[in-house]
């Protein structure tokens, strides 16, 4: 076998083994999307209940709470970037980080300091590589976020929010994540988490579709608070924030898996193309070698015949 042929055969073999890996990753990601979507759905009754309750309390009683009052001057804003732990997901991390950078630029132009919080190894390494200070980072659960982790993040953010600005506290909190729309559509976006913009009671009543109250009943009945409106709000708001963070984490994990599946599908297709090309090239090389051998044999025979005829 010729040297050229051997080179092509080697390339085909290595591409084939890569293809197997891509294919496996594609299948794994595809099955994990389903799980991530199921988790998102499983968490939705809780967040619906919370949203409804928070809107009810806020809409009905004029309770002032530290989490809902807009500070007069905002000097520092926290940005929580929810990214992936691993790569191999196409432009997922790049798109998310671009969105985060855009938000940071916007906040800076308003004269605010930025305090960065990150979730996921990729987001963390992006900022540490650029020597940007990260206040706190979490990693290791971007694919399987849990309520406990969301609570942990929520507690840290609340702590920063309630601290004085001079002690490193922040006046508002933004969250950047990738919203999962469908397995082919997921958009990076940012939202302000705190201070809370609680939806108006009327709006929530008409906007919450399936949860709409029975016909004839007012959007929110007059609630009795147990033990008091302030205590209820105190208990509800941190949970509401945790639940918003959890839903962002879940949405991000579904998006991550979907991006990974798409990226691995493309990689598998490219590997197929490469294998095809190399097979063609190897065939051509083999044909060329055979042709050359034949020419050599025929040429040799001719030369022999000519020399024996000349004797």
């Amino acid at each position: 076998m010729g040297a050229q042929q051997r080179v092509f055969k080697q390339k085909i073999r290595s591409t084939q083994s890569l293809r197997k890996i891509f294919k496996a990753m594609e299948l794994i990601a595809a099955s994990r999307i389903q799980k991530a979507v199921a988790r998102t759905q499983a968490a939705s009754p809780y967040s619906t209940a919370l949203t409804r309750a928070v809107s009810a309390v806020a809409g009905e009683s004029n309770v002032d709470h530290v989490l809902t009052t807009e500070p007069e001057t905002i000097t520092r804003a926290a940005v929580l970037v929810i990214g992936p732990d691993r790569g191999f997901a196409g432009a997922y991390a790049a798109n998310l980080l671009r969105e985060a950078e855009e938000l940071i630029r916007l906040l800076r132009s308003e004269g605010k300091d930025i305090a960065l919080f990150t979730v996921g190894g990729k987001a963390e390494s992006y900022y540490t590589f650029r020597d940007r200070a990260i206040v706190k980072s979490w990693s290791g659960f971007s694919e399987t976020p849990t309520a406990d982790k969301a609570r942990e993040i929520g507690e840290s953010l609340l702590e920063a929010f309630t601290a004085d600005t001079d002690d490193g506290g922040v006046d508002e909190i933004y969250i950047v994540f990738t919203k999962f729309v469908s397995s082919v559509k997921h958009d990076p976006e940012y939202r302000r988490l705190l201070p809370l913009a609680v939806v108006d009671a009327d709006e929530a009543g008409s906007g919450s579709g399936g949860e709409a109250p029975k016909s004839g009943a007012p959007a929110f009945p007059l609630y009795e608070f147990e033990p008091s409106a302030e205590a209820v709000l105190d208990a509800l708001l941190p949970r509401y924030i945790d639940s918003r963070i959890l839903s962002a984490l879940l949405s991000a994990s579904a998006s991550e898996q979907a991006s990974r599946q798409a990226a691995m599908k493309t990689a598998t297709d490219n590997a197929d193309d490469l294998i095809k090309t190399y097979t063609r090239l190897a065939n051509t090389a083999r044909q060329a070698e055979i042709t050359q051998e034949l020419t050599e044999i025929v040429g040799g025979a001719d030369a022999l015949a000519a020399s024996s005829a000349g004797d």
Partner: protein
Amino acid sequence: MAVLEVNVVAADHEVWVGEAKRVIARTLDGEIGILAGHEPVLGVVAEGETRILTTADETIRVKADGGFLSVENNRVIIAADQAELL
């Protein structure tokens, strides 16, 4: 007789859904019993046990570790950080 529509949810999953005659939950101030036709309530649930008497006269016991409870229009929602059937 009117029945209560009960929904017990934890942060990451639904725990129990069904119809009930009576719900007894533990709030910060003590236990609260809810029958059909109860006035709307929003309360903070303390750590402890919630007992639900279903329409089939079974008692469902749920362990919850803090959260809240809302009652309106014979609909009871208990949302806890963590909850499990006992």
